């Protein structure tokens, strides 16, 4: 999977640029690049539903973030105890990566999944639901209760945004 590894290295470089630059608009554009790279990675991993959804959701997130950051740059200076904080964080992340590497060795080999539940869905999906898109059959027939939970989350997000941005400055 050489193309997948090159794409992941590109995403890591773009994420480093998004973290390190001081201009807010440049970092929002860099995170847009990470999202588009993720959509390409979903296409390489044979998941077309997710590629469409990730692309359009990424565009909407960039529009919302640009609205929040435009004309609002502030220069920052490093406060005291900066070296100590950075050293502790870097040591923590190195320990996390070492433990993560030890745990990854126990996963099944990349490319040979254990599909105990999904084999049942693949064999009987077309006959029991009549839908040829098996991902839609899973989210709307075999696991429709999770879709109800997701609709509730979207509703709660809309109510939360309306409750936060009430009162002053609404349109007359």
């Amino acid at each position, binding site marked *: 999977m050489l193309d997948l590894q090159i794409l992941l290295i590109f995403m890591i470089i773009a994420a480093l640029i998004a973290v390190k630059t001081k201009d807010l608009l440049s970092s929002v554009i860099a995170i847009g690049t990470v999202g588009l790279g993720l959509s390409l990675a979903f296409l390489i991993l044979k998941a077309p*539903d997710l590629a*469409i959804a990730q692309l359009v959701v990424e565009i909407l997130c960039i529009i919302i973030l640009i609205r929040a950051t435009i004309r609002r740059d502030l220069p920052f200076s490093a406060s005291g105890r900066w070296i100590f904080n950075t050293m502790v964080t870097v040591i923590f992340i190195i320990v996390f990566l070492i433990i993560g590497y030890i745990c990854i060795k126990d996963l099944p080999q990349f490319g040979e999944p254990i599909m105990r539940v999904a084999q049942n869905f693949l064999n009987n999906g077309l006959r029991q*639901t009549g*839908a040829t898109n098996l991902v839609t059959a899973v989210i709307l027939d075999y696991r429709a209760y999770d*879709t109800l939970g997701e609709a509730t989350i979207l509703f709660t*997000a*809309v109510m939360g945004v309306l409750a936060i941005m009430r009162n002053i400055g609404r349109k007359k």
Partner: protein
Amino acid sequence: MIDDPKKGMTLIVKTITRLTVGLILLFGIYIVSHGHISPGGGFAGGVIVALSFIHIMLAFGKETTFKKVKESVASFFESIGAIIFITLAMLGIGGGYFFFNFLAKGEPFRLFSSGLIPLYNMAISLKVGAGLFIIFVTLILFRVSKKGEEE
């Protein structure tokens, strides 16, 4: 649409928006309605429908948009989408269990196949599209007041 040169973006953006925003809406409806045959489904299609209305709002400014689409209409559609989803799920209790798929299965690769799944997709797309449009309108219309003035 009203062509006020002071509001919204330049003339090139307005002309292209007039030509393409109907096609974006039609493409979103296509992805929603063919959710059980080809990749797509209710969520991605709903976001595309919301993006077509956001496109009108970004290109023409907010006064012109609110003459075409009011906020109360968007709130009404979001509630209708949720009510249709719950009602179709409750109707399955009579047949067996919650979310039971009781309509005819049909033959594969047709538009009217696989029971309730196309109706679920349309209800989800109404809810997602209207909800995301309301979020965007609320974040844009927040006007800056002077710091320190409350309530």
